[in-house]
């Protein structure tokens, strides 16, 4: 067994290469700072070598200023690595060689992979033999995005691992006394090497990317384009792409969506075998019902992830981070927060982890607190069910929800900044703007497939178990008698009823929906699962992505359109799943802030739903809801408390 480590600058394509040679599906994007932790996996069998591949976070040098750098350095120094693959972006050889020179000092056998040859080949030519001789290590040209040269690279890497030493070209530098001078000599030497091995065809400094950037880095143009792209993605996903995917998956989808038919078949079969009616119900409504309701949303989630992956791959997001930085600073965030927020559309957990690249502690904390408010993949079923079932033929509702959540984040950012005090020191901000490229459809497809797999896995484990527990709790009363007629006497009803009283001013004060909201804290998909189990509605969407039984759903839930909207927002903003809370805890590193974050989520979810319901009812019915006065009291209290918190903080600052 040998250990191969991948090291290189941020966005040099390490993770793309890693995914290619291990068959893993780690998150990638055409911007820096996606990998913040080391990842390891076995080398694919086809290379016929027992090896572990380790993907390290991207760094520009081996000085330990950032957490990514520390991880990378500690790892290469402490672990017994047999061979290092130094991945280099061939568009910037001289910068990359600075890190290479430091890596060579470690004395670990090294091989250089000149990556992104697809982007460089028209402009730059390399004298590989010379470079290899000068650095005393093999050099291979690859393109990890197109899977070119990778086989040769691995073959040579395995050969290289058999040699036990690495000649250090920069040996003489170690004797030099002064650190700064030493670094300059290092760069001089590198510049010499680069000029002797690299020929640039045209030295025209203004590239197509630059021309595009001339317009797109204008904040007004850039943000407008971004807004329309996001809008397009949602439109495309819900109206077009998900149907195509559903057609591809046709057989499976109809299997899940026409569950009623499927459930009948199962009951027939089980009855024949003499299985008791209770167990048949458990299997049909508890297990199949809950999981099937959630699985029906796979096409939409796949298409959303496909489009978002294309967007991340093209390089536009780095520009958005750049544009947003001054604006984000006003709400206590950092330009790099957009990395977290964008990843949060898929899942909050990696989004929260990506905050590690933010150096300012306050901006990092703020990003951790705000990322869970972005509707993640697990919340998509809730949004679709409630916008499509209650507002049919109003497709704009879906993107509107995302827009609302983004506006909410801005308001919350201002609010928190007001409470915890503004940061007066302005930070340095720098972000690399990689060259634009055509996004890779194959990478986007595998991202979508990977999301599909993990969604199925989740539905098959957590959702099945949670739905089963919901079913059991709603089938027995506290004396453990099986309930036959009145479900309101069940254990679940008894537990959820007191909570549902709190939800009356929000318009959905029924215990079933209270139970659904509670189970949503385990995993947001389970909100839909619980509704499916408790109302025994079976499949919720069909293969053309129309909501089945939408009348039935509306009638059985027995709540108004406005209340449905309030319920949706409540579930979008209240605490996310356990996994996200765990990630928040590990990044915030403070119980106080974690408690604040969770409390904030509860309050925001509750108050937002309250406002939506009360204002909505006033508009729709023309007269206030019976609970209007209670709602006003709650809102006024909330406002008073937050004003007090703000003032208290100001007093503290005055004292300081």
């Amino acid at each position, binding site marked *: 067994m040998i250990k191969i480590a991948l090291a290189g600058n941020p966005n040099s394509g390490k993770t793309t290469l890693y995914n290619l040679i291990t068959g893993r599906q780690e998150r990638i994007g055409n911007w820096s700072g996606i990998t913040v932790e080391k990842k390891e996996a076995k080398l694919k069998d086809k290379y016929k070598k027992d090896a572990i591949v380790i993907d390290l976070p991207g760094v*520009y*040098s081996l*000085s330990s*200023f950032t957490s990514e750098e520390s991880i990378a350095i500690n790892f290469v120094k402490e672990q017994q690595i047999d061979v290092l693959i130094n991945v280099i972006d061939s*568009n*910037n050889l*001289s*910068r990359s060689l*600075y*890190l290479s020179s430091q890596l060579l000092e470690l004395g670990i056998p090294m091989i250089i992979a000149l990556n992104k040859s697809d982007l460089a080949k028209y402009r730059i030519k390399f004298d590989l033999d010379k470079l290899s001789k000068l650095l005393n290590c093999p050099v291979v040209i690859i393109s990890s995005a197109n899977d070119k040269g990778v086989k040769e690279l691995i073959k040579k890497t395995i050969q290289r691992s058999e040699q036990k030493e690495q000649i250090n070209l920069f040996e003489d530098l170690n004797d030099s006394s002064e650190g700064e001078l030493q*670094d*300059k000599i290092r*760069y001089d030497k590198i510049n010499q090497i680069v000029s002797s091995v690299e020929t640039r065809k045209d030295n025209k*400094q*203004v590239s197509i*990317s*630059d021309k595009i*950037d*001339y317009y797109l*880095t*204008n*904040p007004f143009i850039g943000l407008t384009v971004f807004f329309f792209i996001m809008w397009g993605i949602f439109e495309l996903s819900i109206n077009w792409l998900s149907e195509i995917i559903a057609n591809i998956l046709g057989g499976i989808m109809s299997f899940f969506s026409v569950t009623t038919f499927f459930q009948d078949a199962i009951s027939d079969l089980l009855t024949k075998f003499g299985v008791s009616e209770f167990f048949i119900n458990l299997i049909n409504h508890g297990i199949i019902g809950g999981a099937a309701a959630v699985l029906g949303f796979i096409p939409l989630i796949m298409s959303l992830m496909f489009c978002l992956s294309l967007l991340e791959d093209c390089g536009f997001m*780095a*520009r958005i*981070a*750049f*544009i947003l*930085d*001054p604006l984000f600073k006003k709400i206590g965030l950092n*330009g790099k927060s957009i990395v977290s927020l964008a990843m949060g559309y898929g899942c909050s957990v990696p989004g929260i982890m990506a905050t590690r690249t933010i150096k300012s502690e306050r901006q990092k904390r703020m990003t951790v607190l705000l990322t869970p408010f972005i509707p993640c993949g697990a919340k998509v079923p809730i949004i679709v069910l409630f916008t499509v079932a209650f507002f049919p033929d109003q497709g704009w509702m879906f993107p509107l929800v995302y827009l609302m959540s983004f506006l909410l984040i801005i308001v919350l950012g201002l609010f928190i900044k007001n409470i915890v005090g503004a940061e007066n020191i*302005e*930070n*340095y*901000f*720098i*972000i*690399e*703007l*990689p*060259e634009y490229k055509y996004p890779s459809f194959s990478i986007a497809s595998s991202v979508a497939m990977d999301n599909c797999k993990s969604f199925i896995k989740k539905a098959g484990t957590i959702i099945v178990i949670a739905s089963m527990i919901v079913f059991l709790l709603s089938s027995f009363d506290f004396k453990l008698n099986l309930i036959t007629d009145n479900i309101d006497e069940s254990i679940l009803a008894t537990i959820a009823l007191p909570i549902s009283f709190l939800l009356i001013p929000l318009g959905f004060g029924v215990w079933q929906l209270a139970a659904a909201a509670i189970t949503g804290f385990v995993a947001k998909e389970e909100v839909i699962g619980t509704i499916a189990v408790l109302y025994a509605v079976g499949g919720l969407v069909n293969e053309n992505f129309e909501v089945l039984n939408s009348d039935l759903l509306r009638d059985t839930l027995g709540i108004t359109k406005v209340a449905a909207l309030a319920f949706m927002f409540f579930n979008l903003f209240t605490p996310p799943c356990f996994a996200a809370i765990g990630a928040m805890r590990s990044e915030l590193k403070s119980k106080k802030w974690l408690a604040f974050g969770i409390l904030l989520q509860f309050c925001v979810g509750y108050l937002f739903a309250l406002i939506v319901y009360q204002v909505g009812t006033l508009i729709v019915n023309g007269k206030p809801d019976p609970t209007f006065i209670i709602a006003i009291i709650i809102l006024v209290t909330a406002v008073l408390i937050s004003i007090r918190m703000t003032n208290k903080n100001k007093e503290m600052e005055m004292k300081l």
Partner: protein
Amino acid sequence: MNITEAKIASDLIVKEVKANQEIKKFLFSLGCYEGEVIKILNKNRGRYIIIVKNSRYGINEKLAKAIQIEENYYRNKI
């Protein structure tokens, strides 16, 4: 003179980076240090795009002010 005062699209020589050690080291690892040639590609409402060793970076006003450039060299170029 710093980057905010310089003109777009001319070659500039870095004189000094007036910032904390951390950001200085970081810029050094990118190749932005005393004596090196950099270029300003674009300025827009407190946002600057600079070219250092064939890579583009977006920087904010504060960092742009921290990067000092050779004044004389700049004048000669004009």
